[in-house]
């Protein structure tokens, strides 16, 4: 419990740390949920959406990984990975390995480029 509280506190104060991950949100004006909820629960959203899409064929874009990448991929590299990448910067900082991009494309689709 104390550890959990500690982790929560650490997450909440992440921005205050000097060595906190640096990344650009890119199109961050309106995400699919409030920022705090996204930080805490984005993995749950992706997990549920993945089963709905693959198993049931429900292809709403709100919580789709493709939608995340299309907004948040870097304007320079076109990817959410790499140095200062939207996904990789935080995940490297917190030492949480993500397998998503072993199979999924980390790059914005051309059609969605704005």
């Amino acid at each position: 419990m104390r550890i959990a509280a500690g982790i929560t506190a650490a997450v909440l104060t992440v921005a205050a740390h000097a060595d906190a991950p640096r990344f650009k949100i890119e199109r961050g004006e309106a995400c699919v949920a409030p920022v705090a909820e996204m930080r805490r629960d984005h993995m749950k959203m992706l997990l549920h959406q993945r089963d709905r899409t693959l198993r049931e064929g429900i292809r709403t874009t709100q919580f789709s990984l493709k939608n995340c990448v299309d907004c948040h991929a870097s304007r320079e590299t076109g990817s959410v990975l790499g140095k200062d990448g939207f996904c990789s910067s935080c995940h490297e900082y917190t030492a949480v390995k993500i397998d998503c991009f072993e199979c999924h494309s980390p790059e914005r689709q051309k059609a969605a480029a704005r």
Partner: protein
Amino acid sequence: MNPRRRQVLGWGAAAAAGAALAPGLRLVELALARSPEEAASKLQRWGLLIDITQCGECDACVTACSDENGWTGHGRAETDVQWIRKVSLRDKRTGYAQTLPLMCQHCEHPPCVDVCPTGASFKREDGIVLVDKHTCIGCRYCVLACPYGARSFVHEAVEGQKADVPRGKGTVESCTLCVHRVDRGATPACVEACNKDGGKAMAFGDLNDRDSAIHKRLRTEPSSQIRADLALNTGVRYQGL
């Protein structure tokens, strides 16, 4: 869904309803216009009808599949993935030669699903047989179980995947009937290519819909399943075999 797309789909549905003179009963058009929030339904069963008398020496279907789904060979036939291939048949006595495209047959009773130990291999409500690569452990039981040799194991690291077609080393994959295209109302890439650059041998449609062209042809013309003796009730049917 953006309003413009909804409107276009609405026109499509209205046109279809008008053409059928029975609003709401044209399941194909309703299915084609399925909205993104709607789940795949048992009302449909997607399938292919391949007239191999029209199938020539070209490989437009294979090329189109490879382009659409982003799979390529490395010149290593033993381990390269293959979602669709051209098979050549020759009668030894008469010398009569035929060629046909072979891919996942999207069985009603798929052996690959029966043998999968993790539930990764599954059949969607609308009959499309898929691999959930999130739960696939790469055991390859399904590769052995499939009587059509339709499944491939990904032996080598994959890069540059298509956004709609995630692929990765250590999992099994096969023809998805271009499920990402079907879900937005399009036909599979092989069918599109065959009708554009090939012999117009392939047709795609809903096997359950009596009003669909594919149902009409299956009802009135002879067709066959490969290895019909296994009673798998395949979603891919052939003519002229």
